């Protein structure tokens, strides 16, 4: 805590130089940058694994990798994208933007902030290192169901367990920091109901993280003792139950998907009003919708388990509760559309990504409704249909929102406008290829192709080839994105403080690039 005080005492210096700046930094902008770069590197690593998966599935039969390694790829791709790319990406945005948006000089707990970031590279390295261990990396799917992850898993699984523990610590510390910042660091006059929606959605997400990351830590701890210390939490032979694992896992797992998407809702709720040049339609209903989605996320989790043989009463309850989530989500989509209605819209890159988000996320939402209906889920369960569903909500949902946020706030971060032509090439390249990649997976899923299998029967061949081609194009588009990012950091048309004509909010009142220390004196909010 003493560091925070020293920081507040003399705030006229700029950024220190050298490598140790990044190791020792407690500055929210530095840490935000670190998080975002970490997320991007993980996106490329996880993406490379997806390329291996799509290469193997390009044709029926076994071509590129052996089945065990294929399963390792699907497992690691999922884990890295969820815990390495999307979650740290969102935390990076929170670190950069929340203090700027509520008029705070920094996060509430800067030293802890440094710690929660620097755990991540070690956890990530430990997770990826399992690939090079004897027996190979984890190959049981990112949901690591017992007994695949206990009795039948390779020795490297213990490293995976500790990596998850570390990721959990990092997330919990980050969440505590965000809640403390929002509660204690707001500028005078910034009441809760005046906060930008991005801050609101992250505030609610942070509570979700604190509620469920410890449960995940408990689940992997039980795995650890089952594997090494003779307990039988998930082993029927010792009086435990493998289905119990699924209950504990999905108690974490379902809120987790909202942890990944709620901040995305926040980003989109910032971007659309700016480029529609209208106030966000239904601000308070957005806040309440976010809170109700967060609440509902705790009581619907067993819709992931319809095929475990649960009683009909249970299926009915979880089906109705799940479909209820469509109501607050529809409120959000309605509000975004109503914000655009009769607005003076322009289509700068952030707005293009935001509109693509609204359209494509809604497709993912609708397929989610289909999966939520218990009797039909029996057919869709563990097919490519669910793969298509969650990639529509996580790639064209969460990832698109992070990319939109980059295009929206990058001028504030770097002081340079993003080259409009390159940004639009990146957008159209991505948005077309992502649909070529994931839309056909709906068809092959409905036709019965199971997920996590390296081979498939001949009737799925055409759509798989098309999907793979889309996958390679989408992967390459993100390498192009790296080029756009580096080009923007190194130069470009200087950005004004306001950056976008219709932009509202405190972050647009500071210079571009944002000075190392901002809001040393709290701004006055009307």
């Amino acid at each position, binding site marked *: 805590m003493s560091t925070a*005080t020293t920081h507040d005492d003399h705030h006229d210096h700029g950024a220190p130089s050298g490598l140790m700046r990044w190791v020792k930094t407690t500055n929210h902008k530095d840490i935000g940058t670190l998080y975002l770069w970490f997320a991007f590197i993980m996106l490329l690593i996880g993406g490379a694994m997806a390329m291996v998966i799509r290469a193997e599935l390009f044709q029926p039969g076994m071509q590129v990798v052996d089945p065990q390694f294929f399963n390792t790829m699907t497992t690691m791709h999922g884990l890295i994208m969820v815990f390495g790319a999307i979650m740290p990406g969102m935390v990076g945005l929170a670190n950069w933007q929340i203090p700027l948006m509520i008029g705070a000089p920094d996060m509430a707990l800067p030293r802890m902030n440094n710690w929660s970031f620097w755990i991540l590279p070690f956890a990530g390295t430990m997770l990826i290192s399992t690939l090079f261990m004897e027996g190979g990396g984890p190959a049981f799917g990112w949901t690591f169901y017992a007994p695949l992850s206990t009795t039948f898993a390779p020795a490297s699984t213990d490293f995976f367990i500790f990596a998850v523990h570390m990721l959990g610590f990092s997330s919990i510390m980050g969440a*505590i920091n965000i809640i*403390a910042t929002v509660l204690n660091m707001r500028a005078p006059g910034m009441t809760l109901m005046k906060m930008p929606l991005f801050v609101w959605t992250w505030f609610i997400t942070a509570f979700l993280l604190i509620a469920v990351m*410890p449960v995940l830590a408990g689940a992997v701890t039980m795995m650890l*003792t089952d594997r090494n210390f003779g307990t039988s939490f998930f082993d029927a032979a010792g009086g*435990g*139950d493998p289905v119990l694992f699924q209950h504990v896992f999905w108690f974490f797992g379902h809120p987790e998907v909202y942890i990944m998407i709620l901040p995305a809702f926040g980003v989109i709720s910032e971007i659309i009003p700016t480029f529609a040049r209208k106030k966000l339609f239904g601000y308070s209903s957005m806040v309440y919708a976010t809170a109700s989605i967060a609440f509902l996320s705790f009581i619907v989790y067993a819709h992931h388990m319809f095929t475990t043989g649960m*009683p009909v009463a249970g299926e009915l309850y979880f089906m109705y509760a799940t479909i209820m989530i469509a109501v607050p989500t529809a409120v959000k989509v309605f509000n975004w559309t109503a914000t655009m209605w009769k607005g003076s819209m322009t289509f700068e890159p952030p707005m293009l990504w935001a509109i693509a988000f609204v359209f494509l996320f809604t497709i993912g939402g609708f397929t989610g409704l289909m999966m939520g209906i218990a009797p039909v889920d029996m057919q869709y369960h563990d097919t490519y249909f669910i793969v298509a569903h969650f990639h529509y909500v996580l790639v064209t949902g969460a990832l698109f929102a992070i990319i939109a946020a980059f295009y929206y706030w990058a001028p504030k971060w770097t002081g340079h406008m993003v080259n409009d032509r390159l940004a639009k090439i990146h957008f159209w390249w991505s948005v077309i290829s992502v649909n070529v990649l994931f839309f056909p997976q709906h068809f092959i899923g409905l036709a019965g192709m199971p997920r996590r299998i390296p081979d498939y029967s001949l009737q799925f061949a055409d759509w798989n080839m098309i999907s793979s081609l889309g996958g390679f194009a989408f992967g390459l588009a993100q390498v192009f994105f790296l080029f756009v990012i580096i080009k923007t950091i190194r130069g470009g048309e200087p950005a004004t403080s306001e950056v976008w004509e219709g932009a509202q909010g405190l972050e647009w009142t500071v210079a571009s690039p944002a000075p190392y220390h901002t809001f040393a004196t709290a701004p006055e909010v009307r």
Partner: protein
Amino acid sequence: MEKNDRKQANQRVVKRLGIAAVLMFGFGFALVPLYDVFCDITGINGKTGRIDMEEALSQQVDADRLVTVEFLATVHSDLPWEFRPMVRRIKVHPGEVTEVNYLASNKTENLVAGQAVPSLAPGLAAKYFNKTECFCFTRQTLGPGESREMPLRFVVDPELPENVRTVSLSYTFYQAEPDASGSTSSMESGGLESVM
């Protein structure tokens, strides 16, 4: 907010949320007994019930109906025993108290303790299948080369739904800690006590 007030407020938030995180970690483990209690009440998950002899004898025998009970036996790979039911399948009237035997033999030169864990299929019939005596209620210890008949006395509840005509009762024997106290070790007790 004054700097000191803010520092205090931050510390308060960290403390409260830290406690919340620790409690949620505990909640993850609390799900284990909660799950067993839930399965016990609803009778799902193949966990059979235990009643005393008087209660079993007080049930009305439904002589018009016959239910087939099949017996299965599995030995966990760590346990060097042979284990099989003396009868594979019998027909019983609901409400009728029936006794059958399993045979277990220790194939080693050592004293070995084992614990049997039951499971009944179909799972929804489990709450209508009650035992008054079972070798699975306690751990069993067999001396070097010893064989023993292990009794099981059960009664099928006459309330068993009409559509269930066959139930399969399966036991898995796994190795238990070889101490003499007769209770299971603390690590294993979480799962064990509730499955009798």
